[in-house]
């Protein structure tokens, strides 16, 4: 019998070093004689660069080099970092320059680098680099940017629309013509950041003797970093190695390859010294990719009973200054809109607007939180206007379990049909409603009201696209010591990836995690791979680890059977021993089996099997697997101050088979709290000139412990048939429904004022303003333009 490890709440392998201060994050890697880099960044949102003078900076004692694009160009195969995800909808290429040279297009864009004995000296010298700029008008707000007369974000562009597409299915015209009611909304999720507590960072080392470049980067995608480094530096991949050390959170932006990684590597080669660059928090605000800003003008058509007949409308997506990663955020926002629901018709016109702001790429959720926010706001509107219960409207529209697998009439951006594989959406919603006592809420609300308190409840459903394929490799090898080594190109950044892989492998190989050593995110251990993003690694790398472990297990049993002269079917693996079932004395250890399997010179290999105990698998799963859930939030709002207190959050989620329920709950809760930030706090503000206004954690607010309620996580388990583990991804689940549910609850609490909240986040001053507007103008259709400074 195999010991059961999968599905248990086993302690994490990662914890000890992290708890004792002995982990190794990129900044902790100290190589002798390391130099430190500081990047000079554009102070203008948009400007022509006339001249860069580095002479004074070079004179500073302790400075080893100052590079601009002119210095790098002869050594690179391209001036630009080429986009990771091409798309036919992209009208023109806007790849980021390695270092800006003739034009800067956002505040924070890197323009030169100083390499010095330490960062202190590098920053001293950076202040002496003189750049002659000619400021240009900036495109800041994306809705303004798409207008014909808007300033161009890039001087020579014909317009600011970098990509455009439609998401269309069903007969939209008749859906709307025959509707009992049509409601229109203008909705606006705003820009925020990922803000992993560890910023980005890189250290590069070049060994002349072996012509080997080693780069440690706080990246989510070591293999794509390897390919870009090799391509741009014109080196063979075999002479480049990328390692992800301990990574202090990713949440999306660390999947992008950045100039700093390339320039640091270049400097290490040029100067023959290790070079390190560590991003500070201000730079993180100015140069690490961000997300979420969109304007939606949408309408929904419904029957009398609240059944949705169709949605249609237009969305403008803030793409930032460059294309750092395809169109996926806008694409997935649009697709997410109808995901949990059986909606027959849809027509969305989407434009991606280039602006003079930090480039946009996925932040935990990658467009999906926006899609959920829009749809749930529309469904609330249907319920309110048609005098139906909000949960009932959803129940009438949710995809029913008997419709599974449910084919959506569209494909992923990779061209794979979107087929929702499994799940029971009505059941998840019912569980959430019961846990939150939704039915009794009106009574509790009335009682609170009698005491002068305003309580509200809100609901949101979500479907999370997870396990993006095609594969992520994993290798399982038992060494002659008897230790089991698991390695994968999967990248760990706090999600317990090593523990997950160890559990899956231990399940097949004796059940004792203490024999297992896991290596992740090192390109030296696998030739190919993708890394960590899109809630994919348990599905992809987990499936490969499972398949590899099964192979090794079969071979262990076969060789052990030879050694013990019994049938392999009568053997079992317990801990690090292979025993004859029911005969405690007859056994061999992993170490003995592995040594035997290595062979002896001049003798036959045991069982005629190939030597060694190692298997590498690339389980290919093209179809994505879809997780889902329902969240119910209860809040209290103070109408005088606009303060919102979240009293309770219940989230029922279904990620299929949970490999480690404790880790799953951690992912869900962490995601919910990120969503609380999106609902109430997090907003990257720019003024009309494109100057960022929130560049410290005192100005851009992240949720802290005192704003965070107890979050109740309930599991619903619909194993997916798409992989042998039955697992779906979970990394982004919590963030998807939270802004929608919290905003719905706030609006519900303010029912007497009849306000409509059309944005996220919504701040106390927004709430006070909405109430004031509702008092003077009962229809309260004014949108608070929260993007403007001085709110």
């Amino acid at each position, binding site marked *: 019998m195999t010991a059961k490890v999968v599905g248990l709440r086993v302690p994490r392998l990662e914890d000890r070093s992290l708890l004792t201060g002995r982990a190794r994050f990129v900044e902790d890697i100290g190589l002798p004689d390391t130099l430190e880099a500081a990047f000079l960044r554009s102070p203008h949102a948009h400007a022509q660069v006339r001249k860069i003078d580095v002479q004074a900076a070079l004179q500073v004692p302790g400075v080893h080099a100052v590079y601009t694009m002119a210095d790098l160009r002869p050594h690179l195969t391209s001036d630009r970092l080429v986009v990771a995800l091409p798309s036919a909808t992209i009208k023109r290429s806007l790849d980021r320059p390695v270092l800006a040279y003739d034009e800067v297009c956002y505040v924070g864009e890197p323009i030169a680098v100083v390499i010095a004995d330490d960062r202190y000296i590098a920053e001293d010298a950076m202040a002496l680099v003189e750049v002659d700029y000619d400021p240009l008008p900036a495109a800041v707000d994306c809705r303004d940017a798409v207008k014909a007369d808007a300033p161009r974000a890039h001087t020579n562009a014909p317009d600011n629309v970098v990509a455009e597409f439609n998401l269309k299915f069903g007969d939209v015209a008749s859906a709307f013509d025959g509707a009992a009611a049509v409601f229109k909304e203008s909705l606006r999720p705003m820009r925020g950041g990922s803000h992993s*507590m560890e910023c980005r960072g890189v250290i590069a080392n070049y060994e002349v003797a072996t012509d080997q470049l080693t780069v440690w980067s706080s990246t989510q995608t070591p293999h794509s970093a390897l390919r870009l480094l090799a391509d741009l530096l014109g080196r063979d991949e075999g002479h480049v190695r990328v390692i992800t050390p301990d990574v202090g959170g990713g949440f999306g932006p660390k999947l992008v390859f950045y100039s700093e990684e390339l320039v640091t590597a270049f400097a290490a080669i040029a100067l023959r010294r290790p070079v390190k660059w560590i991003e500070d928090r201000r730079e993180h605000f100015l140069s690490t990719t961000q997300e979420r800003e969109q304007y939606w003008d949408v309408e929904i058509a419904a029957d009398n009973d609240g059944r949705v007949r169709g949605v249609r409308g237009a969305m403008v997506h803030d793409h930032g200054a460059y294309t750092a990663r395809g169109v996926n955020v806008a694409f997935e926002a649009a697709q997410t809109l109808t995901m949990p629901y059986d909606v027959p018709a849809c027509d969305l016109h989407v434009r991606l607007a280039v602006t003079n702001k930090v480039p946009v790429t996925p932040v935990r959720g990658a467009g999906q939180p926006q899609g959920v926010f829009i749809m749930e706001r529309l469904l609330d509107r249907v319920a309110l206007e048609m005098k139906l219960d909000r949960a009932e409207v959803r129940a009438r529209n949710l995809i029913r379990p008997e419709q599974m697998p449910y084919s959506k009439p569209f494909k992923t951006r990779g061209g794979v049909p979107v087929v929702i594989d499994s799940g029971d959406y009505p059941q998840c919603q019912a569980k959430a409603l019961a846990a939150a006592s939704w039915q009794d809420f009106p009574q509790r609300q009335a009682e609170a009201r009698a005491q002068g308190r305003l309580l509200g409840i809100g609901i949101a459903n979500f479907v999370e696209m997870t396990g993006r394929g095609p594969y992520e490799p994993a290798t399982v090898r038992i060494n002659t010591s008897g230790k089991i080594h698991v390695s994968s190109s999967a990248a760990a950044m706090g999600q317990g990836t090593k523990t997950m892989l160890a559990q899956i492998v231990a399940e097949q190989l004796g059940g004792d995690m203490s024999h297992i050593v896991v290596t992740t995110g090192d390109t030296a251990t696998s030739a190919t791979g993708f890394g960590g993003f899109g809630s994919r690694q348990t599905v992809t790398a987990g499936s490969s680890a499972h398949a590899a472990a099964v192979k090794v297990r079969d071979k262990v049993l076969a060789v052990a059977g030879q050694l013990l002269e019994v049938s392999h079917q009568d053997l079992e693996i317990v801990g690090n021993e292979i025993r004859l079932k029911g005969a405690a004395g007859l056994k061999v250890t992993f170490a003995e089996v592995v040594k035997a399997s290595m062979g002896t010179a001049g003798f036959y290999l045991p069982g005629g099997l190939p030597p060694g105990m190692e298997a590498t698998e690339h389980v290919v799963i093209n179809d994505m697997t879809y997780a889902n859930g329902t969240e119910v939030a209860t809040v209290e709002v103070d109408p005088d101050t606009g303060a919102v207190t979240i009293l309770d959050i219940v989230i029922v989620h279904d990620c299929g088979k949970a490999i480690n329920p404790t880790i799953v709950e951690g992912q869900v809760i962490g995601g919910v709290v990120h969503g609380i930030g999106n609902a109430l706090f997090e907003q990257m503000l720019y003024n009309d000139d494109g100057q960022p206004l929130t560049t410290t954690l005192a100005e851009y607010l992240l949720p802290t412990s005192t704003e965070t309620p107890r979050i109740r996580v309930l599991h619903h388990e619909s194993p997916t048939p798409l992989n042998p583990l039955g697992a779906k991804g979970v990394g982004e689940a919590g963030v998807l429904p939270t802004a929608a549910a919290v905003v719905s609850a706030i609006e519900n609490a303010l029912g007497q004022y009849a306000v409509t909240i059309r944005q996220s986040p919504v701040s106390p001053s927004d709430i006070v303003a909405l109430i004031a507007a509702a008092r003077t103008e009962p229809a309260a259709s004014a949108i608070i333009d929260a993007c403007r400074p001085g709110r």
Partner: protein
Amino acid sequence: MTVTRKIAVTVNGLRREAEVPVRLTLADLLRKKFELTGTHLGCEHGVCGACTVLFDGVSVRACLMLAVQADNHAIETVEGLAAADAPLNDLQQAFSDKHALQCGFCTPGILMTLTEFLRDNPVVSEEDIKIAISGNICRCTGYQPIVEAAMQVVKARQGNPS
């Protein structure tokens, strides 16, 4: 020219000396000169709390202090909570038990904040703990498991293991 000073600091019980530039931060002294890299820098502007260490027993932000200010003072860092080969202390163990860390980047600062708080306040509520760690930002855990870990320690130290 960079002005330097000779300083002597007691770090995790050991007296150490260094010649440091006067502008070197306490965090960089610990991380770079003393190679105690458990103290992390999440913002370098005093908000995130990742750099929290104890200065003569009191929590401070090592990013906002200069190394020279630590001359003749005692500093405790996360490395001092458990020796390399020793078992985790009760607070560290509770963090592991309750999954109170994911990426672990914020964790040393939160451990040091709670080390001081629970030492000075042996009987506390969940709400007290939330307030105590409200100056430490964690992007991964949602704080709930951290509060649970601290409560486990509170109960165990009072003799009622949860």
